[in-house]
């Protein structure tokens, strides 16, 4: 009797796959640890150094504020200009990538492929390359942020474009509207709030990015990290970090409130 009940019970799914996944993951971890020469004893030995560093960072040197205020303004300016230029360039790119507006696969597949390639290069590397091309200053930083923004805004926008209601577009096409008219009165009203929200979101990211671009000489407040760390003035470094945090939090707050209103 008992064995019959046992037999009727469904078998538990095989665990072989889980074990295999776990083993592969452990092997990956082990290999990575060797490759990066990570060891917890090193971290343990390094901890006192780090505590010393943290102790030197406090209290922050508040008077350094006057020195970095202009650089902070430049950082915000770079983010603003970079985001705006990126948003302008992103509009035609997004239109090319959207499969419901650009009906030819021959155009939108390559366009998306190029967009994906652009998005693989991180902003700081872009900035390093542009610094090599244009020289030091905020301009290469702005170009790097522009390219980065195009990648992000165009991707978000073309995905939103593909979900718009086709009704108004069909209605306008059937009364003989040309492509520009369809775009102005059929597409833009449906997409503008999303687009504005994506631009604001990108602006938030760009402010954070602009704050570190100075590390490669692309303008903004990041330059002061190198100066203060180079002279071992950690109290000034912590002032930079705190100031950046405050500005980023304020901008995030304003921007997220605006985005809530938009959508």
């Amino acid at each position, binding site marked *: 009797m008992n064995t019959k009940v046992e037999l009727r019970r469904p078998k538990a799914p095989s665990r072989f796959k889980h074990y295999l996944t776990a083993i592969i993951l452990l092997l990956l971890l082990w290999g990575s640890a060797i490759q990066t020469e990570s060891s917890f004893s090193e971290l343990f030995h390094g901890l006192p150094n780090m505590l010393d560093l943290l102790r030197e960072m406090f209290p922050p040197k508040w008077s350094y504020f006057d020195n970095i205020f202009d650089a902070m303004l430049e950082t915000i300016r770079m983010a603003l200009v970079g985001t705006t230029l990126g948003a302008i360039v992103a509009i035609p790119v997004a239109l090319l990538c959207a499969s419901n507006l650009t009906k030819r696969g021959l155009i939108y597949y390559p366009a998306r492929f190029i967009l994906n390639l652009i998005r693989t290069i991180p902003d700081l590397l872009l900035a390093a390359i542009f610094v090599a091309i244009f*020289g030091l200053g905020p301009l290469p930083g702005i170009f790097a942020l522009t390219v980065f923004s195009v990648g992000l805004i165009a991707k978000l926008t073309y995905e939103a474009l593909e979900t718009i209601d086709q009704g108004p577009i069909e209605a306008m096409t059937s009364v003989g509207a040309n492509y520009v008219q369809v775009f102005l009165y059929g597409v833009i009203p449906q997409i503008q709030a999303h687009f504005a929200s994506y631009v604001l979101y990108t602006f938030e990211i760009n402010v954070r990015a602009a704050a570190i671009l100075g*590390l490669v000489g692309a303008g903004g407040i990041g330059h002061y990290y190198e100066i203060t760390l180079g002279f071992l003035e950690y109290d000034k470094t912590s002032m930079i970090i705190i100031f950046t945090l405050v500005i980023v939090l304020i901008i995030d707050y304003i921007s997220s409130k605006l985005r809530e209103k938009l959508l």
Partner: protein
Amino acid sequence: MMNSWHDRVQKPKKSRYRWLIYVALVVVYIWAFAGIPYHGIKETAGQISRAILTGIFSPDWDYVYLPDGEDLLRGLLDTLAISILGTVISTIVCVPFAFWAAINMSNSRWVSGSGKMVLSFIRTFPEIVMAILFIKAVGPGSFAGVLALGLHSVGMLGKLFADEVENMEHGPVEALIATGANRMQILWFAVIPQVLPGFLSYTLYRFEINVRSATILGVIGAGGIGTPLIFALSSRNWDRVGIILLGIIVMITIIDMISGAIRKKLV
């Protein structure tokens, strides 16, 4: 006739303060664009960008594998190892943070509120600055990069994990409570099975981001492919810049494809 049409369809009313917003925007933009120094572009800009472009299209293939030390494959492997370790560390560290910040796991708003604050504080702290601090602690090298990524990712992963915990079904938890399960059993049999696919998917997503971050850590000496890239840029070795960029692009594209395919299967 014209009038009746206008009576029927009225244009939507626009806010009276609209122009104020426009003026503010214009002022901000004038301030932003006027403050940028447009001079100071090197005359060689066109020449160098052409050199980099030709470098990308005729890369220094010899650099892909060198028998003795620093080459592209080893740099990429290093970058990959940093991002794998960093992601795993942050995934382990962020789980308690996630349960701390999830509102349905705690008794008071204050507890979860403070958890969310801590997470957003970690999130706004740039990983490259963290890497600078860790370099001071453990010396330059990949390990500093691992620690920086591991700590920085906790901010975002913790928030995403907390959202996942907040969105889970409460039924199984109640059912287990009714059968007299203790807290550990509830966690193991009701909570974990529900949140695990989401957790894994977010971890993979963060891994994609971390691979990108790991490529820039080398800029400040925290290991990975960034260091040879900066060297190649400063020594004007454009062919090498080309092959390194190509390597980064290929690696990230492949990882995005694999990770995206797994994530589609998970959720």
